[in-house]
């Protein structure tokens, strides 16, 4: 994963700290995630077969991943037979090159874009700009991010960190630079903001010759691509231009058309908390007299096969990008999306990013630890990704990597010491006696307000209990 926009990000704890210090950001996030949590719970509660749907979603994804090679070949066959062209990209660089070449072959200098995680992940917009091609984001939240020269902070709503007043200011300031300016006296009423986006983008839709999209699902059996959206910008991009280029991760495949009956129920209810999103488009290659006459499908690896190679970590590829896990995550709610240093924030990002990119950078090594393992994410995941399980699994990978260092980390030393102590009850008892003695010296009415060394991270804001005068095992021995 070559994630150009986030290079050089600090590790999670320090990035989170700056978000925590931003009261406005915290209010925006708390308000938005609280709203969507309630809507999701209501939409999910309406179905009495929700658990069966989740299990089916998980199982279909497992079946797909375990036989991915077969399904990818089937996608290629069916899309080609339906008049589409299929390209394969080993990595982000290759995918960017393919798209740039395809756009240049049309002679066009601008493209309209449907919101797509895959194209964000590969840094496509920046690469297109370098090649002299303007890419216009058409999803409202993506537009806000693009006009604000900002980073996305949420999978579904990349501008979730912005409130209506900030969005109004961005529109007023920047829309004119990209095309139709914001109307005079624009208010921060969401209806007015949506109207401004409609006016700004309409001229771009009407003249666009090339569109770039992703896809939520690719049906192997039929070669059908699916885009799930709300605003109609997706339909505009998928319908009006002559050429459509879709960049799709290889894990987006589902085996059969019927399988969509599961995902088209799971996704909208988990994502926006709606029974169904306003618009879903499906297309199979090209159609005579309707929509683009040329369709290119770019199948993207970019770390997905590395993820697939780990039997525990591979379940991260089940993800259908609903973002329910972000919305319920207490860490995400407070730290915000930018702290995760990736287009994939939140719990799913914490297990996906270190697998797609590896654990070589400080931020990627810190991501598996950006969780209390509270399990709220697993509970809501519509495809039952056991995120806490994968987090712990990836923590072991980070630790095992660090074992190769000649000088052990302080944490490693502490953990080894703890193992030594806990491996035998007499050693534990000895340490407990020492602790009780120290506690009697340090405690203020049973409470310690300052601990030394790394433990000061605790007592900076929290009192610690003073060790009791007698441990349980000493009491037991004395009384039994």
């Amino acid at each position: 994963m070559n994630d150009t926009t986030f290079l050089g990000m600090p590790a999670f704890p320090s990035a989170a700290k700056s978000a925590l210090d931003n009261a406005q950001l915290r209010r925006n996030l708390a308000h938005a995630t609280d709203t969507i949590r309630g809507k999701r719970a209501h939409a999910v509660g309406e179905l009495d077969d929700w658990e069966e749907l989740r299990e089916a979603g998980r199982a279909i994804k497992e079946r797909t991943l375990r036989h991915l090679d077969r399904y990818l070949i089937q996608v290629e066959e069916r899309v080609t037979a339906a008049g589409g062209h299929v390209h394969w990209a080993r990595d982000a660089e290759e995918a960017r090159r393919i798209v740039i070449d395809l756009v240049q072959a049309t002679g066009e200098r601008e493209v309209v874009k449907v919101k797509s995680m895959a194209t964000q992940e590969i840094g496509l917009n920046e690469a297109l700009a370098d090649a002299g091609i303007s890419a216009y984001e058409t999803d409202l939240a993506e537009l806000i991010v693009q006009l604000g020269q900002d980073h996305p902070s949420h999978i579904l709503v990349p501008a979730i960190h912005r409130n209506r007043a900030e969005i109004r200011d961005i529109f007023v300031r920047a829309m004119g630079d990209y095309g139709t300016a914001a109307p005079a006296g624009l208010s921060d009423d969401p209806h007015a903001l949506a109207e401004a986006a409609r006016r700004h983008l309409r001229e771009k839709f009407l003249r666009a010759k090339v569109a770039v999209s992703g896809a939520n699902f690719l049906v192997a059996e039929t070669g059908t691509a699916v885009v799930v959206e709300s605003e109609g910008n997706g339909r505009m991009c998928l319908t009006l231009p002559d050429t459509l280029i879709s960049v799709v991760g290889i894990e987006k495949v589902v085996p059969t058309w019927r399988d969509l009956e599961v995902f088209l129920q799971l996704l909208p209810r988990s994502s926006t908390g709606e029974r169904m999103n306003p618009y879903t488009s499906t297309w199979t290659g090209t159609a005579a007299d309707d929509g683009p006459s040329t369709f290119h499908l770019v199948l993207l690896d970019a770390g997905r096969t590395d993820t697939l190679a780990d039997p525990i970590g591979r379940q991260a590829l089940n993800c259908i990008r609903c973002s329910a896990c972000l919305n319920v995550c207490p860490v995400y709610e407070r730290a915000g999306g930018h702290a995760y240093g990736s287009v994939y924030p939140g719990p799913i990002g914490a297990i996906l990013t270190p697998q797609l990119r590896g654990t070589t950078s400080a931020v990627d090594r810190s991501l598996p630890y950006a969780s209390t393992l509270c399990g709220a994410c697993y509970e809501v995941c519509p495809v039952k990704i056991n995120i806490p399980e994968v987090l712990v699994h990836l923590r072991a990978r980070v630790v095992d990597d660090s074992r190769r260092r000649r000088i052990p980390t302080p944490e490693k030393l502490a953990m080894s010491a703890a193992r030594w102590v806990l491996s035998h009850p007499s050693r534990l008892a000895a340490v407990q006696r020492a602790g009780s003695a120290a506690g009697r010296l340090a405690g203020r009415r049973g409470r310690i307000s300052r601990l030394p060394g790394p433990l000061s991270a605790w007592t900076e804001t929290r009192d610690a209990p003073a060790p009791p005068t007698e441990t349980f095992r000493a009491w037991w021995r004395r009384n039994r």
Partner: protein
Amino acid sequence: MRIALFITCFNDTLFPATGRATVRLLERLGCEVEFPQEQTCCGQMHFNTGYQRECEPLVRRFTEVFADYDAVVTPSGSCAAMVREYHGRVAELSGDARLSAAAQSAPKVYELSEFLVDVLGVTDVGAYFPHRVTYHPTCHSLRMLGVGERPLALLRAVRGIDLVELPAADQCCGFGGTFAMKNADTSVAMCADKVAHVLQSGAEVLCAGDNSCLMHIGGVLSRLRTGVRTLHLAEILASTEEQPPADAPPPPSGSRCTTPAAEVKSR
């Protein structure tokens, strides 16, 4: 039926009163509880922090120590969850087939409320605790073990108790083991919200089934001088007229405790 108490290293060292209360409670209910003194730790801290290799000898010891019992009861949701969810995995990773087999046939480890409700079949344990209490369902009890309503059913049956609802109870307190140190800022931000909800509830005592979470929330409650105490579920359930917990608030002067939380600190 041979029942073993797994006290957990954390309770043993820092919260022995919880262990004593668990023993008193179970004996009052007619159980004969054994405390195998060779026990140490379930390995949760090592496992959850990524030190799975260091975790293995702890799992091995645990499996050996408790092998001969019919059931194990522990006053910790997260340690029970560690044993039930992950000991098999650690054993498997060790490559030792005998350990895997032993972990598989190990007796079931019950969190205290599960043991009381499911094994002993009681909800009224004969406790008396005349104070305003709110209950925080810790994440591992709630989501990994799925203890559900059991602790609340037990608390509701306590005589004299004024059980009040904790707003946003299912939200994590931000402890998360080493998370509390590695991500101290986020951890404390989460805890601040939890503390606000505890204060909002008006309770004088915050109760939970895990002392680790209680230590975290209690650490902030204490630092802020809120006067709200923390007590493990076992200590409330063990409490009687004759033997209230040492750390309970002073007994109410009237027939029913109505002291607002903010005034409790003036003891």
